[in-house]
């Protein structure tokens, strides 16, 4: 069995760079929320990658070489922006 956290394939670098930006850059998240398709095109993502991101399908994204943790935390940060009142801050 492959490792849960596998070596990131070079071909998936644009996808991983985009997920990293979604996770760590509030400006990219805001732009993505406003115009997802344009933001993904600006980041050089191909058709299959954009389609997988449109539904944020974990299995498809990981199948394309996305780092599982980046998928996870990008989604958490997008949800925190979208539904801020559902979170309790300590």
């Amino acid at each position, binding site marked *: 069995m492959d*490792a*849960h*956290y*596998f*070596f*990131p394939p070079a071909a998936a*670098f644009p996808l*991983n*760079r985009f997920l*990293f930006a979604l*996770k*760590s850059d509030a400006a990219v998240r805001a732009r993505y929320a406003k115009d997802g398709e344009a933001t993904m095109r600006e980041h050089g993502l191909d058709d299959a990658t954009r389609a997988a991101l449109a539904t944020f399908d*974990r*299995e498809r994204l*990981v199948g394309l070489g996305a*780092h*599982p*943790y*980046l*998928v*996870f*935390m990008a989604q*958490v940060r997008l*949800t*925190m922006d979208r539904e*801020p009142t*559902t*979170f*309790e*801050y*300590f």
Partner: protein
Amino acid sequence: MPLVAAFACPHTPQLLVRPPTEDRALVLRVHEALGEVKRRLSAARADVIVLVAGDHIEGFFLNAVPALAVYVGARAAGEFGRYRYAFDVHEPVARAIVEQGIEAGFDLAYSQQLPLDYAFYVPLHFAMPAVAVPIVPLYVNVYLPPQPTPRRCHAWGAALRTILDARAERVALIASGGLSHFPGTERYGTPDFDFDRALLAALAEGRGAETARLTGEELDKAGNVELRTWITLLGAVGAARAEVLCYEPSWHHGNAVVAWPV
């Protein structure tokens, strides 16, 4: 001066920013255990807190993936949601770790420009003494294969102990990580709590050195890639018997807070 305190803490962000999926009572019990770490850190009158944590692809992206690294900037800052953190870095201790670590044969990377990862500031949010203490962030690569071997992490921890014991400052050491969890994978809802419980039982008997014999594959299978930070600390604390302050398995994460007498 010998280390004045040693702990391992979890850092899962749901402890800081709780979504409705998380059991509030469980989260508060982990906060209580981290509060005990805060009380003990305060009582130990630490001059500096050295934290060993794994980067969540925050400070280091695929531009460079160091196995072991030291942050040697003047301040360490990061943000999560509405939280903004900034800690003074203890530069003399950070420099000593880089310089003497390299002399000891560990090819450490260092940086003066990194956003601080939440693996560092989540434990500090709850455990930093009221009068803030400067920190030294130490990085172990846990999420981007190939990661350093458990054997190497353990050896680095032993070398780190030698460096820290030679300092005049009162140094506390904290490992941040774990226990079992699988973020972003199909195993997210099924962590390996049996692995965690067996590990904690072994650590309570002072058998931490056994973790140096684990393989990277075993850690990945058990959802414990972050255990490398603990293994580094175990190299520093030797055969000291762990005191488990809490073990709180949630639906996706084994939260453990542990103290070692040093």
